[in-house]
C-alpha cells in the first residue's frame, strides 16, 4: 500500500463517504446508479459533489442500465462508477461481463448485505465474495478489493480506479455493511500526494488502427469515442480490429490474454497485510470487517501466550494464493478463516495451503458482525487440538 502523506485534513466519516471521496480523488467524473441500502449514501453524496467538479450523476431506472451507462461514459474517457448492494449486484452481472470482455474500465461498489434475495436488509454479510468472482457467465477476468476500515475504503477506492484504468478491467470494491456505515476518523491525503493512474489511449491515424491489439503488458491502448477513430466495440468475441470473430484461434487467444494481463500484474495489484506471521502457529486469514475482529483476537491470543498471526487480504480477486503460502511460516499448525458466509473464500485458502496445515472455516451468518472473542475461541481450540477441523458453522 502506498504510504499516505498525512496532512491536517482530518475528517470523521463513514465508509460509504470515504468511497465517494476516494472516487473523486481518483478522478471519477461519472456516476450512474439505482438506490439500495446500505450503499445509497455513495449516490447521495456524489449527486451533490460530482456537478461541482463538472462531473455527472444520473439515477438510472435500474442496475442493469446503471452499468450500461457507466460503460458508455467510460467509452468517452470519463472515469466512471456505480454502487449497489446484493439484489442490485445480481442485476449488474450481465453488463459487468460486457465490460470484462470489451475491456472497459469501470468501478462497481457492492456494499454487501445478507442474501439471498432481498434477504435481511441491511445486516452485514460477506456472502457475495464468490458472486464477485463468478457472478457473470463465462471465464471472465475480474479484480475485487475489500477494505476493512474507513481509511482503507478511501485508499482502495483510489486503487480500484487505478487498477481499472491500468488494466482496462472492471474492478469490484466489496464493502460489508459494517464498513460502509461505520464512522472513523480519517486523515484524507493531500490530493497531490495520491498516485492516480490514467488509461493508455490509442493515437495515430485511424487507417490501420488495431484498437484491440495489446501492448506487451497485455493491455491495448483504448480507442475512445469521439476522437475520430471510428472504432467498433462489441460484447462478441472480436479480433484486434474490434469486429466480431468466431475463429477458434482468435477466441482462445482473446480469453487467455484477458486473464494473462491480470496475471502479469498480479503482484502489483495484490494488497495484503501481515501481523505476527513470522513465528505464528495459528494463522488467521480474513478480510473486511471480519479482519478487524480477527486482529483483536490475534492480539488477545498473543497476550495469552498463543503464537497467532493474521493475514489480512485487501485484494481478494485474483486470489492472493502466493501471499497465503508465504504467510505460512515453518511453525504453522493451523489456518483459520472466519467469514460472514457459509465458507466462500476458505476454499481458495485451502487450495493455496494445499495440505500444509488444516484449514478451519468459521462461519457467521446471523446478520451480526464477528466478535473478537468468537475468533479467539477458535484459535484457542485449535492450539488445544479441540476442534475436529471439519466445517465449523457458527451462529
Amino acid at each position: 500500500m502506498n504510504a499516505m502523506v498525512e496532512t491536517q485534513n482530518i475528517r470523521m466519516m463513514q465508509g460509504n463517504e470515504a468511497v465517494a471521496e476516494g472516487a473523486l480523488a481518483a478522478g471519477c467524473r461519472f456516476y450512474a446508479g439505482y438506490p439500495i441500502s446500505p450503499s445509497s449514501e455513495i449516490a447521495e453524496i456524489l449527486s451533490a459533489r460530482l456537478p461541482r467538479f463538472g462531473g455527472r450523476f444520473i439515477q438510472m431506472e435500474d442496475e442493469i442500465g446503471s452499468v450500461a451507462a457507466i460503460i458508455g461514459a467510460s467509452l468517452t474517457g470519463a472515469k466512471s462508477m456505480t454502487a449497489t448492494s446484493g439484489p442490485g449486484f445480481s442485476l449488474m452481472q450481465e453488463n459487468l461481463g460486457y465490460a470484462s470482455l470489451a475491456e472497459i474500465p469501470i468501478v462497481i461498489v457492492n456494499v454487501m448485505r445478507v442474501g439471498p434475495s432481498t434477504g435481511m436488509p441491511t445486516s452485514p454479510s460477506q456472502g457475495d465474495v464468490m458472486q464477485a468472482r463468478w457472478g457473470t457467465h463465462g471465464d471472465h477476468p475480474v479484480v475485487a478489493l475489500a477494505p476493512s476500515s474507513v481509511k482503507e475504503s478511501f485508499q482502495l477506492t483510489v486503487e480500484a480506479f487505478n487498477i481499472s484504468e491500468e488494466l482496462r478491467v472492471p474492478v469490484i470494491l466489496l464493502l460489508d455493511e459494517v464498513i460502509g456505515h461505520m464512522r472513523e476518523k480519517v486523515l484524507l491525503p493531500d490530493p497531490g500526494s495520491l498516485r492516480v493512474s490514467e488509461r493508455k489511449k490509442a493515437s495515430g491515424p485511424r487507417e490501420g488502427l488495431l484498437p484491440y491489439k495489446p501492448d506487451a503488458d497485455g493491455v491495448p491502448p483504448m480507442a475512445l469515442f469521439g476522437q475520430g477513430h471510428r472504432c467498433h466495440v462489441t460484447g462478441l468475441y472480436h479480433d484486434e480490429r474490434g469486429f466480431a470473430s468466431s475463429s477458434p484461434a482468435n477466441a482462445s487467444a482473446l480469453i487467455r490474454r484477458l486473464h494473462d494481463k491480470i496475471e502479469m500484474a498480479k503482484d502489483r495489484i495484490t494488497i495484503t497485510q501481515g501481523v505476527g506471521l513470522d513465528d505464528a502457529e495459528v494463522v488467521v486469514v480474513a478480510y473486511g470487517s471480519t479482519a478487524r475482529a480477527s486482529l483483536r483476537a490475534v492480539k488477545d491470543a498473543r497476550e495469552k501466550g498463543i503464537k497467532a498471526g493474521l493475514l489480512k487480504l485487501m485484494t481478494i480477486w485474483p486470489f492472493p494464493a502466493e501471499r497465503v503460502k508465504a504467510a505460512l511460516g515453518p511453525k504453522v499448525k493451523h489456518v483459520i478463516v472466519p467469514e460472514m458466509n457459509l465458507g466462500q473464500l476458505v476454499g481458495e485458502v485451502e487450495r493455496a495451503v494445499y495440505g500444509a496445515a488444516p484449514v478451519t472455516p468459521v462461519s457467521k451468518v446471523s446478520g451480526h458482525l464477528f466478535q473478537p472473542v468468537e475468533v479467539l475461541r477458535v484459535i484457542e481450540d485449535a492450539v488445544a487440538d479441540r476442534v475436529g477441523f471439519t466445517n465449523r458453522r457458527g451462529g
Partner: protein
Amino acid sequence: MPEKTGVMTAEEKAREHIRMQNLPHIWCPGCSNGITTRAIVRAFEETGVDPDKTVVVSGIGCSSRTTGYLDFDTLHTTHGRPLAFATGIKLANPELKVVVISGDGDTAAIGGNHFIHAARRNIDITHICYNNSIYGMTGGQYSPTTHLGDRATTAPYGHLEREFDLCELAQAAGATYVARGTAYHFVPLVNYIKKALKHKGFSFVEVISTCPVYYGRLNGIKNAPDHLQWVADRSVTVKQAEKLTAEERAQKYVIGEFVQKEAPEYVENYMRLIESARGDNGDRNQK
C-alpha cells in the same frame, strides 16, 4: 477518400459511411434490414453528420448488427440495453450525436424500461427501431409487436397477446419526435430519420420491417417481395387512418409523424445544473 463534390455517385456517397470491408452482411437474402440501413445512411449523408462526432449504438438481434457496417464510432451492446449505454455516452460527452438502432424485442420487451425512461428524460438521442414483429436472430419467436393470431415458433397455435403500438408508447412516455415509416416506403423513411437526427430531444422512428425467413414463412407470405408488398398493402397515412374505425385501424400500419414538439432536454439541463452547482459556494453540500 473521394472528394465530396456534386459528381459523386450515390454509391460513392454511401461508401463514406459504410465499412465496406465488413461486407457482405450477415442478413438473410430478402431481409429488409439492408433497405433500412441504406435509409439511415442516406439520412446521414443528407444531414451531413460528422462521422467523427457521431456514435451509433445497438443492442442484440439481427437489426442490431447494423452497427458493424457503419463507419462511425459504434457500440454493439447487450440485449435491450443500447439506450442505457447511449445515455451514458450522451451525458458524459454532450458534443457527440448519439443514434440507437434496435429491434422490436430489443426496444420493447427486454429494453422496454430503458425505452420509456429515455423518452421521459427527453435525452437527445435518436432511436431507430426495426420492427419486424418477431425475434429474427433467435429463430422466429413472438415479440411484443407480433400481431394477434399470427404464428411464431413460440406461438404455434396463433398469438394470444395484444401488441404494442410503439409510437403511442414513445409518445405517452414523453418522446418529442415520433414517426413511423416502412422499409417499403423508402423516401418518406429517409425523411423521418433526417428529421429525427435534426431534432433536439428524444426522437423515435419506428421502421416497419420484414423478416421473410421467419415471419413470412410462418404466416403464409411466399417470398421476400411479397412480404414487402404485404407491408405496403397494410399501410395507410395518418390522414387516411382518421377515416377508419378503431377495428379497421388495428389491421393497418399508420405511417407518418405523430409528435414533433419542443421540450427541455435532459443533458442541456444537466449542464446548467453544473454551472449553478459550481457557482454555489454555500456549504449546503459540504464543499
